[in-house]
């Protein structure tokens, strides 16, 4: 595979960002530290957004605590592998064309859209979150 200089540059930058991200979220507990950003939607509206609890969930995941992560934000636990799949699918688009084709079926993307909206509504209705 021929990699352009640009591709290598991006790979390095993204790798560094991901490593920093993981280190920060591994070291600090968002439920105790004060410097993590608070959810805008929650502060403005008082309702939980689909992503509320993600930071604590990531912290729990990095410590191997799946149960806690599931309580903080169940959808994040499900969505991470999905996002990874889509990310790889996008990057390998030229090579795995059939794979990319199936990933981008409109009905599949529509299902993802509906699932996020449903999760958003239901977690507020049923209180599926940790304050």
């Amino acid at each position, binding site marked *: 595979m021929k990699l352009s200089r640009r591709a290598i540059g991006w790979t390095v930058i993204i790798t560094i960002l991901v490593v920093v991200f993981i280190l920060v979220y591994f070291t600090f507990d968002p439920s105790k530290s004060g410097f993590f950003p608070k959810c805008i939607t929650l502060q403005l509206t008082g309702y939980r957004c689909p992503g509320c609890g993600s930071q604590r969930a990531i912290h729990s995941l990095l410590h191997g605590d799946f149960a806690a992560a599931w309580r903080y934000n169940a959808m994040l636990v499900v969505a991470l592998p999905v996002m990874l799949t889509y990310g790889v699918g996008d990057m390998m688009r*030229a090579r795995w064309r059939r794979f990319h084709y199936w990933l981008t079926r409109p009905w599949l993307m529509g299902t993802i859209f509906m699932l996020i909206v449903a999760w958003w509504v239901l977690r507020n209705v049923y209180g599926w979150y940790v304050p």
Partner: protein
Amino acid sequence: MEQYWINRNGQQSGPFDLEQLRQLQLDGDTYVWYNGLEDWEKLESLPQLVAQLQQPGEPPTVPPAQADDNVDVTPESHDVAMNEENEEPEVSVPDVPTAPPAEVPAPPAIPATPQQAVPVGIPVGIPTGMPVAAPQAAAQPAPAQAAPAEDKCPPTNLVWAIITAVLCCLPLSLVAVFMSIKVKTCWEKGEAEQAQKWSDRGAWFIIASIIAGIVVQPIVTFIPLLFS
């Protein structure tokens, strides 16, 4: 004019132009190959071509160059453009309905990988427009001027839309998820320009919502402190 090769029931024929292809009344499971495809594809997996076959008389719509991917390959596409010039005399007579070329062109064999299909040692710049030149030029990656294939669809930005919606607490970017669906549906209807527009809109929407998030975040965090 784009040229197409087909393979029906193991019988390979071509090159055809779009008009001839229409008259052939191909099934969805006919294998098709043209300049820009890595390998033979079933017709049904090339919605863009199917759309073109359904609207007679219209020239094939070439989608606007894809902002992201094409930057890296610009030098190569120059090469291919030069090859294309050399083919010109041969390409410009597709009006003659059949007249199979003396030397049967060799698109990739059905099970072959593209690498195997490249005829080694044939000089690239044959000026006489031998039909051999067409598949050979195509065996190199020729993204810039190839016919719209599935992999020329503008990026859907779906990953970024989900990341901003779920990880960044910006549910507004769910609109961008909707836009990425629009990209695909427009693309499969053959509306390449519309697809590109939705792709751009989605990208800008995501960027805008991230910037808005960064701007609003401190405001929302500090204003309650003033009142407490």
